[in-house]
């Protein structure tokens, strides 16, 4: 396809998810059950207080934040496919652009579901939406998250409404800008924390952009392939190979930034102890880093996707994408939890020999069932939105139109 082909000249016919009413209803019911479980977990945490979780005054952000951050940055990356079609003129991605936007919005909503329900006072959501401290990067992120949903929905409208399609390139460009700001902002939530040595590094924002591209595409691919299986259809080999190749490139990019993050830090005089903690002495965090983040999330998918022959095998591609997602959770678990487990540097030239508040000691954290339930509820909510969206809107390329599908 020519890179300069206007996106507006859509030849693909889009349809809702066809037939299979009972299976679809059962799937929705199962997801609703998981969402209800998440809501109950949040209610339990809110009523009992956060003492029922693994979080404490030493580790203040836990598993819910791992889920929330994953879903939020994956939302940004899920829009890769639409951006490729609208902004970069890669018309081959066009048949999947609408689904890409729906997945992006749904993942973000799922992430916010977790983030909001983990608040100490989730009932004060209206306060968060009406009181802004614009010195706070967190407040800017609230604006970025809300704005992303609006921009993405408007973008979807331009993709779906014939009269507006001529604007889809511009709106797609705006959505691309917005999602890059969103992931930069999310990275800055950590990068601006001067107190925490693992976070307060310049690489945090580009790292988050890179992770979002990789996690988001992997999540999109899993969802897309699952929908195709549900439809009794499959992705055309060319499209599948294109997606797999792109995923391979993005995983490799994320790996390079991760490499820079830890290897440069390892040899730094100020960051060396932080890198050594994660790489060598951090117990569970070291294990999760090497096996989860590096092994499952990076090296194995890269090996699987390296050969063209393997990229044409849908099972291999699905397994690779699933491993990237699992590795993504591992990576965020290490980043968010290890960053807090590390003791604060209160007295650089002294050793803390006694403290009633665990100063100088590595903090412990064991995730609890309610936290896991809330996180799973967030994922289920995102999937529920996707399942509903594809059923009621014409977002899927028609199998019969031969648009990248077979």
């Amino acid at each position: 396809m020519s890179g300069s082909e206007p996106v507006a000249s859509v030849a693909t016919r889009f349809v809702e998810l066809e037939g299979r009413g009972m299976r679809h209803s059962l799937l929705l019911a199962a997801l609703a059950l998981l969402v209800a479980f998440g809501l109950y977990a949040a209610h339990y945490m809110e009523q009992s207080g956060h003492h029922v979780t693994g979080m404490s005054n030493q580790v203040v952000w836990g598993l819910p934040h791992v889920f929330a951050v994953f879903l939020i940055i994956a939302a940004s990356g899920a829009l890769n496919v639409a951006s490729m079609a609208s902004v970069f003129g890669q018309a081959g991605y066009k048949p999947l652009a609408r689904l890409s936007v729906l997945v992006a919005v749904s993942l973000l909503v799922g992430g916010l579901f977790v983030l909001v329900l983990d608040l100490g006072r989730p009932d004060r959501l209206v306060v968060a939406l009406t009181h802004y401290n614009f010195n706070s990067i967190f407040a800017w992120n609230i604006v970025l998250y809300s704005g992303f949903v609006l921009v993405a929905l408007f973008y979807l409208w331009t993709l779906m409404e014939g009269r507006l399609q001529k604007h889809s390139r511009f709106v797609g460009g705006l959505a691309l800008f917005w999602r890059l700001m969103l992931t930069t902002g999310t990275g800055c939530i950590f990068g601006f924390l001067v107190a925490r040595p693992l976070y307060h590094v310049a690489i945090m924002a580009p790292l988050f952009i890179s992770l979002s591209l990789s996690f988001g595409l992997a999540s999109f691919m899993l969802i897309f392939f699952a929908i195709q299986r549900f439809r009794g259809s499959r992705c055309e080999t060319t499209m599948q190979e294109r997606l797999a190749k792109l995923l391979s490139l993005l995983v490799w990019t994320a790996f390079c930034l991760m490499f820079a993050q830890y290897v440069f830090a390892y040899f730094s005089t100020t960051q060396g102890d932080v890198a050594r903690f994660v790489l060598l002495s951090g117990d569970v965090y070291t294990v999760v880093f090497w096996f989860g983040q590096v092994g499952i999330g990076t090296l194995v998918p890269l090996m699987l996707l390296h050969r063209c022959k393997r990229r044409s095998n849908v099972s291999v591609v699905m397994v690779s994408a699933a491993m990237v997602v699992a590795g993504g959770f591992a990576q965020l678990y290490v980043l968010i939890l290890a960053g807090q487990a590390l003791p604060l540097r209160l007295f650089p030239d002294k050793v803390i020999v006694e403290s009633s508040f665990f100063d100088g000691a590595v903090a412990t954290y064991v995730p609890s069932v309610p936290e896991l339930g809330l996180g799973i509820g967030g994922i289920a909510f995102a999937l529920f939105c996707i399942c509903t969206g594809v059923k009621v809107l014409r977002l899927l390329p028609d199998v019969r139109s031969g648009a990248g599908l077979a």
Partner: protein
Amino acid sequence: MTKAKHGDTRTAQTLSDVSRRGFFRRVAAVATVPLTAGTMVVALTRAGNADEAVTDASRWGLFIDTTKCATGCDACVRGCNEEHGIESSARPEIDAQWIRKVVVEDTQSKHVTSLPLMCQHCADPPCVEVCPTGASFKRADGIVLVDKHTCIGCRYCMMACPYKARSFVHESLSNQKSYSPRGKGTVEGCTLCVHRLDEGQGRQPACVEACLSGGRAAMVFGDLHDPDSDIALMMAANQTTEIRADLDLDTGVRYVGI
């Protein structure tokens, strides 16, 4: 009539003298009792009351002389906990600690220092900067507080604080003090006993009072902007240190001996 008038006048004068004498006696007694008890009275000359707007004419702070702070003494911690109704739970990791004792050892000299650690009431507080709703705020007089009505419990301020000086309330509370309200699901920290300050009666923060009662006098509270205040004089006479001075936060709590 004239006699009577004179008599009345004398009587009035006598009564006036008596009441004036009594007044001075009472003032002397009020001033003497704490002094004889060994308490250092700090002139909180600019302390207002709850009805007056807080201004930046004052900046309240603490001077902590760690050479007077004894290892094993936790009078300040107990004083704070009692004042604010802070209780321990079965899980120390979730306990609120507005003030804590820390013992540090110099890596080279092996000199051991004991010190209390609490919110440092920074001039540029990271917790205030990051709070999305503005619930975390700094008063004009430098005291860093949390507005319990707008705190949503996101805990971002706890992530940002370099001193781990903030606590999240993990459990339901009982026996709260009316002057120091707390709330499950919100974040809290040292208030420098702002309720005492705003009374305008010159009362010290509970930790300082407890330290004085224990005979240590390691903590001095006062107005850093008042050149005649005890704290300003102590600061001028000693080389003080900020914890994490590298972060350039201009803390309101300064230490000697670390």
